[in-house]
């Protein structure tokens, strides 16, 4: 049984069909790439999976449970966590606080606990900070832990976005354009990190424009065009798929 199962998932905005009857199965331990031309509905698909947009039609099953219609925080609490395309960070917080706040699901605190500063509440706080520091170290950001997120350069902001996602201790992580806007060295670094995350037992699904990265990183790729899934297979199969080539180059204009 797949970890994430989409059956006939459709998202309409008025007359526009952004995601059109998509079936998708993502197995545990995979690194799956989702590609497609601009406006193919990739990010919308993420938004639908994580409950940010309600599904118009279809069912989404995660870990054997129907999660259709749940709110984003409920979905996150089940271990299905996403990052954002446009760098979304807690700008006013330090890096350490960004990640330690994001440890929320596994470091809950209570009102009496924080007012009285009970040993339990203090320990929760310490554990969250230790965990946050581990994650920052893993992402190569530990040296900047006291810097404000807003002051980070772009590449580091992306890394912090992933660190925030990891803090929620996901079973499955959806990465929305993890390497966009990075220089080659940063891309290389991020690809290595994503592989390591997968090796720690976290299933990865990513949306990305950078073809070289996707082809090098993913074992299996699904292609969306105008909201429909038009192809699925290994990077090798996808690069030779006629429909995919047409989608990217425009129908009828394929090189002869």
């Amino acid at each position, binding site marked *: 049984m797949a970890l994430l199962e989409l059956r006939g998932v459709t998202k309409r905005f008025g007359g526009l069909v952004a995601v059109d009857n998509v079936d998708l199965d993502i197995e545990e331990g995979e690194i799956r790439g989702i590609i497609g031309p601009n406006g193919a509905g990739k990010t919308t698909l993420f938004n639908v999976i*994580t409950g940010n947009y309600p599904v118009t039609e279809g069912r989404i099953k995660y870990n054997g449970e129907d999660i259709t219609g749940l709110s984003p*925080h409920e979905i*996150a609490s089940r271990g299905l966590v996403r990052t954002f395309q446009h760098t979304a*960070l807690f700008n006013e917080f330090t890096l350490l606080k960004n990640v330690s*706040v*994001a440890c929320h699901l596994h470091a809950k*605190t209570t*009102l009496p606990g*924080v*007012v009285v500063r009970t040993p339990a509440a203090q320990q929760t706080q310490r554990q969250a900070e230790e965990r946050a520091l581990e994650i920052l170290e893993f992402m190569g950001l530990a040296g900047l832990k006291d810097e404000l997120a807003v002051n980070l350069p772009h590449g580091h902001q992306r890394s912090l976005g992933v660190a925030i996602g990891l803090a929620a201790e996901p079973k499955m992580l959806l990465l929305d354009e993890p390497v966009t806007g990075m220089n080659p060295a940063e891309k290389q670094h991020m690809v290595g990190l994503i592989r390591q995350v997968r090796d720690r037992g976290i299933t990865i699904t990513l949306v990305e424009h950078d073809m070289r990265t996707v082809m090098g990183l993913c074992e299996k790729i699904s292609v969306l065009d105008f909201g429909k899934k038009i192809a699925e297979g290994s990077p090798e199969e996808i690069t030779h798929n006629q429909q995919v080539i047409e989608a990217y180059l425009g129908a009828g204009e394929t090189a002869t």
Partner: protein
Amino acid sequence: MRKHNLSRPHAGLVVLIAFSCVVPFFLSTYYCGVATELLIFIILALSFRLILTTGGWNLAHYVVMGCGAYFSAIMVRDFGWPFWATLPVAGLVTALVGLVLSYPLARMREFAYLIGSYAMGEAIRLSWNRLEYPFGGPGGITDIPRPSPWSIPGLPTIDFRQAIPYYFLVLGVMLVSLFIMYRIDRSRLGDTFKSIYSQDVLAESVGISIVGYKRLAFVIGSFFAGICGVLLGHYHGAIDPAVFALGPLIILLAWLAVGGITTFTGPIIGTVFFVLLAEALRPLGAWRPLVYGCVLIGVLLFMPYGLEGLPAMVAPRVKRLRRRIRRE
């Protein structure tokens, strides 16, 4: 480094508390009253900020405070409750009112939140205006008694009808309230609240229930607003619906804008600054509102981060000046 961070505010705090304990003895009854009100407003401003840390500009905050005031006044008048019982109970009842209001409000954002909170506040306030029983209609409730005196054997009786004892009562309540709100502000819970203001969609994506935490902040803020209502009602001895209208709330917003809202001390500084300014400008008579307004606009223009941002703004200039003096 750590020691430095901890010890300086603590020393400052001790001085401040000592100052607030001594100062009423040097004030006339009138100014002691001003100081008492100031302390109440500090609790109110911080309870407003607590809700604001989750992103909600709650225009019903004065009305929520009024709920505490009315509850306490009615319990004392009609049921003979002592002040000491209504103080905590009115806080809890107001928290309950806050809980009810928070259900729709926690789902609103930005402009909808402003209008939604204003509408709910007015719905409650105008009910006080219309219902003669038990709220007394437009005339409100009068003759709200001060707390009964404390007589401790061997010591002189503490009569809360006098200005100084009531001031100390309010000071005590304020210190406890500020302590609790400060602890919340500096905790994981406070950070969770602020993460919602900062990036609500991101907060939700890591499993933080936006609605749940907005509601919690609203309930805690309402509790303290209710406490303020009780203190204010029994201080003035009379309340009516006009006391809790939108006008005074806008003035509270001005205090926050001038003091700043990113730190815990910002609202305190803003409130103290403006209450003292209003008193200092009293001799100007009819010119007072004009000057008051100009000062407000001046602060907003030249100190975009409020008075709380002043040290950070001035520090580099002082450093530069010092360097220049040394060179010459």
